[in-house]
């Protein structure tokens, strides 16, 4: 074998110039030792790659993604907010509402089942039952880990209304407080518990970023707004 081990390794790593690489290839066809050495290096590379590949296939944990997507929602340029507006909401929107309405209606016929989470008033979709209660009272900074509805961000929109993003088993979305009701401005099928949850959280955060007039409320401001009953400015 007329090539030193470093050159063989460099060949396998694709680090050789074309001329030398071609010489190795040619020689390997007549030199079993060289061919075996190349195969050995290839085998190691393949084994390592295969071993670590599944890590890159795993869903990225929410706590990592949130570091980046939450920031996106909180302080972003105008351009970014505009970009977020085109997020994938529109197609899901009406389908999710229809599904939830149908569910709500069905549940409404059975008084012993939990109250529906959404209702219709004056042609608008509004929060009802436990969802309305969560939006009214639950603080993002202080909610039980097993809460049926999880509040995400609270913020003021450009019309001066308080809005809050939420996630629950059947419905995720953003509600804005107006005339004593939570108008559901954005809805999407709930993803609670599913692996898709992170995607949905990211989209909600992006949609919230597009709607907010300034930064989201911090814990004290959120508490204050709640205690005052989410008044419109």
């Amino acid at each position, binding site marked *: 074998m007329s090539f030193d081990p470093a050159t063989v390794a460099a060949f396998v790593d694709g680090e050789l110039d074309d001329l030398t690489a071609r010489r190795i290839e040619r020689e390997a066809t007549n030199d079993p030792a060289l061919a075996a050495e190349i*195969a*050995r290096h290839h085998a*190691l590379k393949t*084994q390592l790659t295969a071993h670590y590949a599944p890590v*890159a296939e795993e869903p990225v944990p929410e706590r990592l993604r949130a570091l980046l997507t939450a920031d996106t929602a909180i302080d972003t340029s105008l351009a970014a907010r505009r970009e977020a507006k085109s997020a994938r909401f529109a197609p899901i929107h009406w389908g999710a509402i229809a599904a939830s309405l149908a569910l709500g209606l069905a549940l409404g016929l059975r008084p012993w089942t939990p109250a529906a989470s959404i209702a219709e008033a004056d042609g608008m979709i509004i929060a009802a039952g436990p969802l309305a209660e969560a939006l009214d009272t639950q603080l993002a900074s202080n909610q039980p880990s097993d809460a049926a509805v999880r509040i995400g961000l609270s913020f003021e929109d450009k019309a001066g209304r308080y809005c809050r993003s939420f996630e629950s088993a059947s419905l995720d979305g953003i509600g804005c407080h107006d005339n004593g009701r939570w108008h559901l401005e954005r809805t999407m099928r709930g993803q609670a518990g599913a692996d898709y949850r992170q995607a949905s959280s990211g989209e909600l955060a992006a949609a919230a970023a597009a709607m907010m007039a300034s930064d989201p409320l911090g814990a004290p401001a959120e508490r204050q707004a709640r205690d005052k009953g989410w008044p419109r400015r």
Partner: protein
Amino acid sequence: MRFEEELVELLPRLRRFARGLARDAADADDLCQAAIERALKSRSQWQQGTRLDSWMYRITRNLWIDERRAAGRRGVHAPIDEAATQIAGDGAAEVEAGTLRGDVDGAMARLPDEQREVVMLVLVEGYAYREAADILEVPIGTVTSRLARGRETLMHLLGEAA
């Protein structure tokens, strides 16, 4: 594309690299988290037009080294390290070939840190020698010699044809 979005796209690969360095899955994600936080804090130091991935890998790797040093001072992991160093590299020849056949984690654990990171960057992440040298801030010759030693140890421990 914006900074955060590029980082999000990088996360799967970065987690893979971190897993190779830290080996334990939870430790690896902690490392990723620290790297993301560091990156967000020092984003002004990243120059638009240069490769964000190399920059992120460098941050991750440096944080890992810092942590290993701190752990070493505290005495954590130290016994494992010494054992690893004894078996690794030249000493590996004393261990029977193929002892760890199929056990990539076990074989990687026996590499010294500076060999493991090169193996990850070049053989797993697919960086060119020059790029790996830039990430690690060492001469290219250092990359090739560490890679050669790491490679030999792995091939020895994992057995010949894997």
